């Protein structure tokens, strides 16, 4: 930690320490700002205040156990973390293309639900930073509806750990379809409601339009992904460009914009929520036609035997015990799997040495790359724009520090 003892530099500029405890840094980010009056002349971000050692921890757990840790990397979108980890494992076990379709549909639906939930948190806190208190309450109201769905399927509101290698932990309950239908019906109107509050609100527009502009070249130079990249004029979406879980069969548009400012990122995310609702709707229709289909791969190397078999056959009991205590063992090799998380390309890179524990697990957090550009966008701007810039990049410190 670089401690800034003096509050003024030699040139008479003021040094302001923002964070790690600051309501607008969206976590424990620390920014050291050098100010000349109202203008920021320099910004040095400092991270690591949430370094959890998840990567080291995953190396000490077997493939099933490490799944629980992945929920807590990007804690606004636990499902997409699970999914990228599980997809990397499936590639490692060479079962990536054998996952049952019902499981794939549920994965897509849950990913999109979690995307909306994450965008709602972003919208609520970002608007709150810019002075719109009502948005916070409205967004949380709809988010509770999504969390109710999550609780309905898994019993947990946030950290569901619902995915398993080769499918899902359990089938979705019968009332899942009804809850989703309610949500799909309600959500578009609610997004309209948000837009009436913000999109033409003069205070919001003045504080966001033309602020924190990131050009197309700058976005590619700094490894941007996700909504930030799309707001800078690059039409890149992992769901479209490198489709997974059957995303290529869904009908949806990729929201993008050319301006690259805070307002463009806001508009892109708002449109993304609408597209997500469309995908959920299509998924719900598919789920009806796949009623009773298997939700997990039947592969003795990975998946547990059926409960009835464990009770009746000795071999199944031993098999179950081996899978639980030792875990599945892949061949040596490595696999990289990427998904489109609400913040961008969230990827897991697993290297295996042929033992029951991963040799190395790397989590590529999109926020880690997206945050790099922050120091350059806010340098030269006003202090008041700093919170707008941080909010619009939509960082999650758990993913940056891991």
């Amino acid at each position, binding site marked *: *930690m670089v401690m800034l003892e003096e509050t003024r530099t030699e040139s008479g500029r003021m040094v302001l320490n923002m964070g*790690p*405890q*600051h*309501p607008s840094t969206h*976590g*424990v980010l620390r920014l050291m700002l050098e100010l000349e009056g109202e203008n920021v002349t320099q910004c040095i971000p400092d991270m*690591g*205040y*949430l*370094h*959890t*050692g*998840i990567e*080291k*921890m995953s190396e000490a757990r077997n493939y099933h156990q490490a799944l*629980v*840790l992945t929920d*807590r990397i990007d*804690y*606004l979108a636990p499902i997409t973390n699970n999914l990228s980890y599980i997809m990397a494992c499936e590639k490692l076990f060479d079962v990536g293309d054998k996952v049952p379709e019902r499981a794939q549909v549920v994965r897509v639906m849950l990913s999109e639900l979690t995307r909306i939930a994450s965008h709602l*948190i972003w919208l*609520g*806190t970002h608007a709150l930073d810019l002075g719109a208190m009502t948005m*916070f*309450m*409205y967004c*949380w*109201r709809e*988010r*509770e509806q999504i*969390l109710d769905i999550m609780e309905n399927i898994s019993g947990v*509101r*946030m*950290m569901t750990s619902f995915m398993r290698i080769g499918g899902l932990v359990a089938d979705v309950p019968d009332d899942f379809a009804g809850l989703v239908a309610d949500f799909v019906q309600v959500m578009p109107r609610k997004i309209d409601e948000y837009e009436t509050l913000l999109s033409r609100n003069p205070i919001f527009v003045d504080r966001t339009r033309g602020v924190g502009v990131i050009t197309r070249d700058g976005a590619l130079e700094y490894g941007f992904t996700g909504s930030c990249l799309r707001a800078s004029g690059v039409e890149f979406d992992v769901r479209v460009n490198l489709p997974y879980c059957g995303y290529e069969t869904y009908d949806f548009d990729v929201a993008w914009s050319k301006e690259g400012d805070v307002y463009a990122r806001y508009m892109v995310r708002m449109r993304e929520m609408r597209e997500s609702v469309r995908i959920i709707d299509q998924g719900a229709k598919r789920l009806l036609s796949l009623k009773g289909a298997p939700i997990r791969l039947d592969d003795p190397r990975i998946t547990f035997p059926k409960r009835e078999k464990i009770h009746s056959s000795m071999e199944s009991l031993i098999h179950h015990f081996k899978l639980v205590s030792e875990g599945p063992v892949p061949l040596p090799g490595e696999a990289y799997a990427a998904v489109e998380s609400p913040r961008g390309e969230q990827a897991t890179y697993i290297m295996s040495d042929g033992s029951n524990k991963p040799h190395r697990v790397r989590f590529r957090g999109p926020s880690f790359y997206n945050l790099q550009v922050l120091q350059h966008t806010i340098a030269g701007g006003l202090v008041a724009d700093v919170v707008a810039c941080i909010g619009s990049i939509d960082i999650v*410190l*758990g993913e940056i*520090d891991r």
Partner: protein
Amino acid sequence: MTVPFSRWMRASDSPEQPGAVRPQALDAGGFSGASGVALTTVDRAVGWARANSIWPMLFGLACCAIEMMAMSAAKHDVSRFGAEVFRSSPRQSDLMIVAGRLSKKMAPVLRRLYDQMPEPKWVLSMGACASCSGVYNNYALVQGVDRIVPVDVYVPGCPPRPEAVIDGLIKLQAKIEYDKQFGKQFERAPVTVKA
């Protein structure tokens, strides 16, 4: 003489009877009916006031911070319990909700924030990571915030539901209300910070 709440209600609802037993001493916060007099101790009155106006610090570390925000937002609405005034500055707050895992890099900052809070102050350890580092028993995390600051209430869960945090908050309110407000309570033992 303390009168049960139900009896007091009946007494005040019924018309005046000569010689009827009127409540003489009531909990602070209760009203003494027609006489307009409440007798209590300063300790209880201060405790009642403190318990019902907790100002938590807006201080989130990780996942639990999201549930802490959910607690203060529309559905769960912690303002029903008089603790919705989240302050961003430690100097204005009296409750620190440690919401999330505490890394070793963050630990000195947390202690500094705690020291900046004015007395009386309380700490609520929210979630498994704050209480005992949860699933992360490793090099990077402090194994429980009680090694850094004294904790009054532990709320289990990963992350705890907002209802669970509200329950912890009510338990803390009871603790604040019925504790001794002056004197020895705040002479806490010095906390040793392990590296």
